[in-house]
């Protein structure tokens, strides 16, 4: 059974169906069909996830030669990291659809187009996470830009056109730099024999040190723009400010993960030597991202921009975890990708509900909302706390692991990165305080509480955040083998403890 092809094809075909079938008279039907297809995809993903064997290496593999002369294969497969992100995509899409039920009604095109693009995006994103061929990955990576471009440009704030173009140009520039490296890989591969773009073949390739480093840079730049890292993050706040909350979730929680996913899969997987070589620079950039993102977030008055900057900070943690090159950091980073997806989605959606009620995204336009909309305030607080990594909520585990890994790698970097936690508390709690607490202001008195649909959209996210906060083991056991494999490929093993277990026990007595 070609499970992964089905997982890609179902939402893609659904997207075409929903987008093209004219249901102008009854857009509710389009929405219901779209939601149904995304739920079907979720069920299919669950079936795949249940069959997955954590210790079994790449699974559900498919491999068909696509373009012989390019060495390109239609090759799919899942490892732990890929599976976790596919699952994340499958969970978030129906949630976002439910949360943005009416957001598509007032756009440039009809609501059916809105939901159609979302489904198309889901299919392409799953394809990106499942691709085991660099060429296929690149094609899908670039193809995801089209739906998100139209989603940003079609529905959202007044400056959405500009935001969409900025997003597209940034992403295309990154993608084209990567194209040079992708073509370079082909040339290297063709030198060694029949060209092949399969990651497994490329990983075995003997690339000369300097070539490898140049090719690495091409990939890394594209992924850094995608992630986004300081100093190429500026497109993200502009985009989320204009996009609908649902689009922002798809963008930040799913698509930006392609950046960090790509760093693990391609930078570390194909250029282990260059990755070790680049570590110092990347670690510094990651720490700068953490602190810069957090500091700027504190200064924001626009809620959507604020969340975008928190994401810059969080992506700093993820990149840091990847490039400290030890199992704690990598496990943390991989886990963080999943958890950040959940917590940021919750935060974007709940603030989106708030913004929709008031018609303003400015923090200064709010105050005392918790008195008139207690449920909304409660969900907001919980989402916010998960974003600042409160112990007991899912992101805490991952952030802690990243910091532990960073400490092992470099105590200096860790001591700077840890400041990010303090700053996170500031930006989240200040935002909560300014919007939710205090006396009810005249223009906030009309704000109504969440309706059942909105609660239904948020609840699964928050349940997952709490459950994974206390019991992250299922996810970690899936991710761990992948981490071990990546690290052994890079040629790094964890430093042995300085004090062995027995001696430690003895001295404490």
């Amino acid at each position: 059974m070609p499970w992964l092809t089905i997982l890609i094809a179902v939402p893609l075909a659904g997207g075409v169906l929903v987008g093209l079938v004219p249901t102008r008279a009854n857009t509710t039907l389009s929405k219901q069909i779209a939601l149904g297809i995304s739920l079907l995809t979720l069920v299919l993903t669950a079936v795949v996830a249940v069959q997955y064997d954590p210790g079994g290496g790449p699974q559900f593999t498919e491999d068909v030669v696509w373009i012989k002369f390019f060495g390109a294969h239609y090759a799919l497969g899942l490892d732990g990291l890929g599976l976790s992100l596919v699952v994340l995509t499958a969970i978030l899409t129906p949630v976002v659809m439910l949360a943005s039920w009416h957001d598509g009604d007032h756009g440039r095109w009809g609501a059916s187009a809105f939901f159609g693009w979302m489904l198309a995006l889901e299919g392409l994103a799953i394809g990106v996470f499942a691709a085991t061929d660099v060429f296929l990955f690149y094609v899908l990576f670039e193809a995801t830009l089209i739906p998100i471009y139209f989603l940003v440009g079609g529905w959202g704030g007044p400056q959405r056109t500009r935001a969409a173009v900025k997003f597209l140009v940034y992403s295309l520039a990154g993608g084209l730099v990567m194209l040079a490296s992708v073509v370079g890989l082909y040339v290297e591969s063709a030198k060694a024999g029949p060209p092949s773009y399969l990651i497994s073949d490329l990983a075995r390739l003997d690339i000369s040190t300097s070539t490898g480093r140049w090719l690495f840079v091409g990939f890394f730049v594209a992924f850094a723009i995608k992630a986004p890292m300081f100093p190429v993050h500026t497109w993200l706040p502009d985009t989320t400010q204009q996009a609908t909350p649902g689009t922002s979730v798809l963008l930040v929680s799913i698509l930006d993960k392609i950046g960090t996913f790509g760093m693990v899969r391609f930078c570390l997987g194909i250029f282990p030597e260059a990755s070790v070589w680049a570590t110092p620079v990347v670690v510094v950039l990651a720490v700068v991202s953490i602190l810069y993102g957090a500091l700027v977030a504190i200064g924001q008055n626009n809620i959507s921009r604020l969340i975008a900057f928190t994401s810059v900070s969080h992506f700093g943690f993820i990149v840091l975890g990847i490039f400290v090159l030890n199992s704690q950091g990598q496990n943390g980073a991989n886990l963080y990708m999943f958890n950040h997806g959940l917590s940021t989605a919750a935060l974007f959606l709940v603030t989106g509900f708030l913004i929709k009620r008031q018609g303003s995204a400015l923090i200064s336009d709010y105050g005392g909302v918790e008195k008139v909309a207690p449920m909304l305030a409660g969900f907001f607080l919980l989402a916010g706390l998960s974003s600042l990594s409160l112990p007991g909520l899912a992101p805490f585990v991952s952030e802690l692991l990243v910091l532990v890994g960073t400490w092992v790698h470099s105590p200096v970097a860790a001591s700077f990165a840890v400041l990010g936690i303090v700053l996170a508390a500031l930006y989240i709690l200040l935002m909560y305080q300014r919007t939710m607490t205090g006396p009810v202001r005249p223009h906030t008195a009309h704000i109504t509480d969440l309706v059942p649909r909105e609660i239904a959209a948020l609840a699964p996210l928050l349940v997952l955040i709490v459950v994974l906060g206390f019991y992250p083991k299922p996810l970690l056991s899936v991710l761990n083998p992948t981490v071990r494999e990546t690290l052994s490929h890079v040629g790094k093993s964890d430093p042995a403890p300085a004090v062995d277990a027995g001696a430690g026990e003895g001295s404490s007595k």
Partner: protein
Amino acid sequence: MSVPFVVTIDTPHIEYSLIAPLLIVLGTATVGVLVEALAPRQRRYLIQTVLALLGLLAAGVYTVLVARDLGILGGTSKTGKVVAEGALAIDGPALFLWGLVIVLSLLSVLLFAERRLEGGVTAFAGQAAALPGTEAERQASTQGLEHTEVFPLMMFAVAGMMMFPAANDLLTMFVALEVLSLPLYLLCGLARRRRLLSQEAAMKYFLLGAFSSGFFIYGIALVYGYAGSMGFAEIANAVSSRTGGHVLLLGGMGLMAVGLLFKVSAAPFHTWTPDVYQGAPTAVTGFMAACTKVAAFGAMLRLFYVAFGGARWDWTPMFYVVAILTMAVGSVLALAQTDMKRLLAYSSIAHAGFLLTGFIGARSLNLIGEDDISAVQAVLFYLVTYGFMTMAAFAVVTVVRDAGGEATHLSRWAGLGRTSPILAGAFAFLLLGMAGIPLTSGFTGKWAVFAAALSVGAWPVVVVGVLLSAVAAFFYVRVIVVMFFSEPLGEGPTVAVPSVMTMLVIAVGTAMTLVLGVVPGPLLDGLGNVAQFIR
């Protein structure tokens, strides 16, 4: 007693069956001229259209037959044959380019023959000899006159385009260059609307074109001085044996390159392109942009790979510079354009730069692995993708109109996505293709030329190429923004309903862009068989 002095002249041996496609097209053109002389005026349009289509179809079918007879089609033989006393080389690339030129010309005939958009007449001047703005011109248009000579003119140009990449000596190549150019000069000046602009374009193209031909023939003279022969095989021998007079060779190569680079509109010989593309009737622009580039790149490949292949190290640096310059000029200047036809013209300059990127990837055959992509293969593939995209894009330009004819100003395209989503969607897709977004043929083409260039270590060109692709993407996206995200200005554009012919061109071009983007494999495999020149 005087012995009678006997002179024996061998009759030249011409392989008529192998060059039949060329002869068919030339024959069609000649018959077309006779039709103009003999057929009554009202019937000419129909006769000429059908004649041109049939002639091209016959030539196309015959090309396939020739390819099959030579074993190139089945892949049993890769060599081909030198015919007509060494004047023409019928090999894989030549036959492939014949096929491509014929198919693209078929589409052009459909655009030429479009009559519904101008209310029952073609887009060509009613009476070219009438001065713009005079009584004679008004009379010509009220009488519904039209020049059906455009069809035979076009057939002559097509014949030249087929001869150009197949030419196997310098003289044939020059003759082909002129045969393809002269009708084009004339066609450029035949627009029904904005005639002054059109005539200016024709004049400009003619003067500069004549000038570049001068360069070309001077180069021929120098190369002849160096090699002592016009034939490519002899020149190649002379080049690889490094006979004296290297300066002659360098000068000759440089001057000939000027002539060819002019034809493919590469910088710094590109300045005619925007003006001519804008002034010429759009159908002619499409034909020129697609077919001329195909033919000229074919000729360039043969000249530099076959005749000057041994001097590769001498000419590659020059093409490095030209390729970078061309991509830069095309992409950067396109940013400032507000006219759709000028924008497409600059885009076509940028494409010439990308083609040149592939062109510099020349390698010795023994260095190319079995499944490895060769430069010839890459360039030919890119030409296919480019030809179809361009043809369809110009076809779209012909149908977006207002009261004054084609509405080519960019601002007039605002809101097109709302009024005619299908056409705007097709055009957006073509633009994405030109920008090189994956799943379009533009991407696979770009990939192929970059791979070819990187294989010879030309990474500076490739890096510049990808960066400029990003710049280029910006102006393509800008058009999409205007069409889909902007409110229409005033009346807004109207999309005239064209006849099935123009629709067919748009549909074929768009479909090819999609198909070659998703499954380029079969074409690339096929090109692997044909991409070998003979000497």
